[in-house]
């Protein structure tokens, strides 16, 4: 089994939640049994399992066309164990898909390849501090969610971005949240991701070195040891060791809610690597939700030495709800001042449409449009609800861009990191799927 989100902390917490004998009947209030005064602990599980079929193609052109037919079998699980004063959360996905390369191109027809994967999005323990739970300490892997943006968060340099529209995963470390009434929120995070990655790389390097010591003439072991040492050095990035505080990343966020106005400020810092500050504001203008956020990065560098790199987003969202359903339209603009690991261009538009009709179907259409190349990433999901807790999903994904520009095409590279399809689908730019999903 592949474990895409390794880490002792996460695994220990995962095991703790998975094997804790919960008390489902202990519900008291506020859903997870954590309502003030509630008696606990209370266990809850929100989960779904999906099976489906997906066709994907790279769409590069007839000469290099490649495609795959993928059987999908996956599940998502959110475990909560909550009690007054503490709680445990495990949010993970299990992918049991087998990939069957089925068609043309160099891939050809191949055998089914089962590649189960467990992805731990979040696994953390919560401890309430202070009077009336005004502060919470979090230990484990958890999202911090800096800023106001729901898709593009220019100031969030601490949460990992493993998917563009799907940002379920957090970082391993510590978190602290404090509430001053309902108006003011304080949050802080300390990421140990780089320390843990360096520790893991060091362990692998030592193991490779030990193997080489046992058979010093083996060229494969020699290469492995060299690669291990190089990976360890890269993980350290100049730090003295895995415990070096220069590998730590810290973040601090303050949000204020003043009636219809929301203000947010955040900062993220890692020595010699990241120094990002951001400010955002939101407003409910008579039903139209307006949001804007800007960020400056002082260490990753701007166009000129010593100048900051700028990022920003601004957008509007409007929703309508009636007897028969609801409709939410939103349009955001994202300014990506410097090419990053995720977005490679400067100007983006992010329109989206979310429609729910009579409780029997949902339609979600989203796009990331990049004007300079131009290219676009389109995603659509039609979900039918023929019965309680049973869905039929028809999905479509397309990455559109100038042919021949290779992997540098922004939409193409983004398509490769979308969460589905999973095994063997990297690089495909068009996909359509049908799936059945059961919620439990």
């Amino acid at each position, binding site marked *: 089994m592949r474990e895409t989100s390794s880490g002792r902390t996460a695994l220990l917490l995962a095991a703790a939640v998975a094997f804790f004998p919960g008390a489902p009947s202990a519900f008291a209030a*506020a859903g997870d049994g954590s309502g003030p005064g509630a008696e606990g602990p209370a266990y*809850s599980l*929100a989960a779904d399992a999906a099976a489906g079929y997906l066709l994907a193609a790279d769409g590069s052109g007839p000469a290099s066309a490649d495609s795959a037919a993928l059987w999908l079998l996956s599940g998502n699980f*959110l475990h909560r164990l909550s009690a007054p004063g503490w709680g445990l959360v495990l949010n993970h996905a299990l992918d049991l898909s087998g990939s069957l390369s089925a068609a043309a191109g160099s891939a050809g027809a191949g055998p089914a390849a089962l590649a189960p994967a467990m992805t731990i999005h979040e696994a953390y323990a919560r401890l309430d501090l202070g009077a009336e739970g005004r502060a919470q300490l979090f230990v484990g892997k958890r999202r911090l969610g800096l800023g106001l943006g729901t898709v593009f968060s220019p100031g969030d340099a601490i949460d990992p971005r493993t998917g563009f529209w*799907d940002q379920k995963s957090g970082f391993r470390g510590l978190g602290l949240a*404090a509430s001053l009434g309902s108006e003011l929120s304080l949050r802080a995070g300390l990421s140990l991701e780089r320390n843990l990655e360096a520790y893991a790389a060091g362990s692998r390097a030592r193991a490779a070195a030990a193997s080489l010591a046992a058979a010093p003439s083996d060229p494969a072991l020699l290469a492995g040891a060299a690669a291990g040492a190089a990976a360890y050095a890269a993980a350290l990035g100049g730090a003295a060791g895995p415990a070096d505080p220069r590998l730590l990343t810290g973040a601090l966020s303050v949000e204020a809610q003043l009636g219809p106005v929301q203000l947010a400020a955040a900062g993220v810092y890692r020595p010699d690597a990241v120094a990002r500050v951001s400010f955002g504001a939101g407003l409910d203008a*008579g039903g139209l*939700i307006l949001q804007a956020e800007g960020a400056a990065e002082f260490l990753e560098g701007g166009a000129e030495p010593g100048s900051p790199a700028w990022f920003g987003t601004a957008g509007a969202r409007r929703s309508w709800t009636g007897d028969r359903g609801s409709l939410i339209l939103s349009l955001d603009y994202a300014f990506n001042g410097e090419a990053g690991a995720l977005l490679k261009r400067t100007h983006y538009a992010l329109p989206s449409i979310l429609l729910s009709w009579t409780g029997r179907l949902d339609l979600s259409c989203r796009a990331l449009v990049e004007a300079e190349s131009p290219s676009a990433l389109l995603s659509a999901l039609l979900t039918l609800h023929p019965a309680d807790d049973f869905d039929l999903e028809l999905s479509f994904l397309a990455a559109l861009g100038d042919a021949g520009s290779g992997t540098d095409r922004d939409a193409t590279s983004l398509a490769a990191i979308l969460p589905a399809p999973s095994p063997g689908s990297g690089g495909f730019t068009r996909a359509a799927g049908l799936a059945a999903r059961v*919620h439990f």
Partner: protein
Amino acid sequence: MSRFPPRLLLARALLAPALLLLPLGLNAEDPGAAEVLARVDRVLFLESYASRATMETREPGQEPRSMTFESLSRRDKGSYLEVVAPARTKGTRFLQLEGSLWMFNPKSGSANPIRLSSRDSFQGSTLSNADVGKNQFSDEYAPAFLPEAVLEHAELGPVPCRVIEGKAKGPEAAYGKIVMWLRKSDSMPLRMEYYAKSGLLFKRMDLSAIKSFGATTRPSVLRMESLEKKGTVSTLTIESIEPREVPASVFNKNWLTR
């Protein structure tokens, strides 16, 4: 896979009028209408409480749909609500504050709660998200007595009632007026009639199954019928309600993502 359940808003809209009627238990008195309404407010909207309720919606040609919610409310703060059933939307959380409404689905791909508009209209633009956070009638409606009448109650039969008409004081009120039918013997609400600002009577709520929830006695079944769309009925069954000291920290965005 990313999921966003906007239809919860509809359910919430249907639930909102019911939440306005949570804990009841009035004494038989004959004060002025304003005092009656103020006293109704004090008893209806406990200072701080926890509740659990299931709502079933029936529409012509559709299978019934139900949702179960648990909530924490405080009169001076707002409401925190979490869906516990059905499984599809289980775990989705709402936070209603004065001037803002937030929704967070921990199963979705978004790391942040999504802000929704408090002024979004529901039910033909006469019910808004802000209704959910409103914890009293008397600040938005000016009451006056109407002639007493006998209500033909489905469960209790003919019931002599005191009738109060609450007219909107300003444009921020969700309804043009609300007519309340209170049982004469103990001022227990048995019917609420909701009028649009145009004057159209478009929804009616019948309250029944009066039962004791510890220290408070109140109707436990609230049946909301749309008079515009025949056959569309939502029934809220209150399973539990109890006074509880809800700390202010619950009404903070941090609580949504904990």
